[in-house]
């Protein structure tokens, strides 16, 4: 009796888990007429920010505005616009903020340059520390006692 209840519960949990995944991806039920267009559509909707919920792409967001923007992308692709024309149209309406990959302009330069600058500083600091320690070991002529080694 006990075992069958547990098995039943497991079956319910299993069924819930199986149905959970599709629910998460069900916002966007539309599909494009050809696989090539579908690929472009998927690419564009993943690189445009949902303006209402700023850390999601319009592909991942269930809100109405994201749905409208996906429709807009779909219609522009079918109307024969290039990816860049579609991106430009979005930027004209919402600004660079809508792009997850902002263009390299004077105002966005630091976004692109800063990580590399930080990396350079990090490498510089690491090299200095290693050099200093190497010099310490090379200049250390003290005798190592056996009890120091075992300690």
């Amino acid at each position, binding site marked *: 009796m006990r075992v069958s209840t547990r098995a039943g519960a497991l079956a319910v949990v299993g069924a819930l888990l199986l149905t959970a995944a599709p629910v998460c991806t069900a916002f966007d039920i539309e599909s494009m007429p050809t696989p090539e267009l579908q690929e472009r559509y998927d690419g564009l909707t993943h690189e445009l920010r949902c*303006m*209402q919920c*700023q850390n999601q792409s319009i592909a991942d967001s269930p809100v*109405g*505005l994201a749905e*409208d*923007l996906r429709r*807009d992308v779909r219609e522009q692709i079918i109307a024969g616009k290039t990816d860049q024309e579609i991106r430009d149209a979005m*930027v*004209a*309406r*919402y*600004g660079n*903020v809508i792009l997850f990959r902002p263009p390299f302009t004077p105002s966005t330069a*630091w976004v692109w340059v*800063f990580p590399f600058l*930080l990396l350079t*500083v990090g490498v510089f*600091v690491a090299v200095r520390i290693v050099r200093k320690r190497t010099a310490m070991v090379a200049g250390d002529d003290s005798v190592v006692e056996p009890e120091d080694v075992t300690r």
Partner: protein
Amino acid sequence: MPAAIFLALAGVLYVGVVHSPNKSTMQSALLGKAVPEFSLPVLANPGQTLTKAQLSGRPWVLNVWGTWCAACRDEHETLLAIAQRNELPLVGLNWKDEDDAAIDWLQQLGNPYSVVAVDRDGRTAIEFGVYGAPETFFIDADSRVQYRHVGPMTSEVWEREFLSRVPRGVLP
């Protein structure tokens, strides 16, 4: 040296935090640009359409609202008070809403708008770069967007950001 690196990093992060795209400060990408073309049915008067051309020639204000929008209810009193002052035409854009609900809303709460255009499917709102309601745009006599306010309208914002942009001699 470590202190200098720390200060530099703190400075960059400070700039990042201060300039992060906060919803209420994000400025419209349409500033200084022409208002997008539109041709929309008029609320409660479906035979009529409202176009950009009909509104050009004097400054006007576009207020994006919906009955589903709680903040729109919050600003409604202010909009009614502004309408009473009769300074600028207040055009409503009823965004992704139901006609009946919108008509009921205006009958019950009062109607501050000179005219309300119906954007059922949200296409015009996208052209305006709207990302949430309420949003209010100031449009000059040459049909250019000069300001956008995100969030409920207040009488301070109205005076500071809207009336201040109206050329002398236009206001009564």
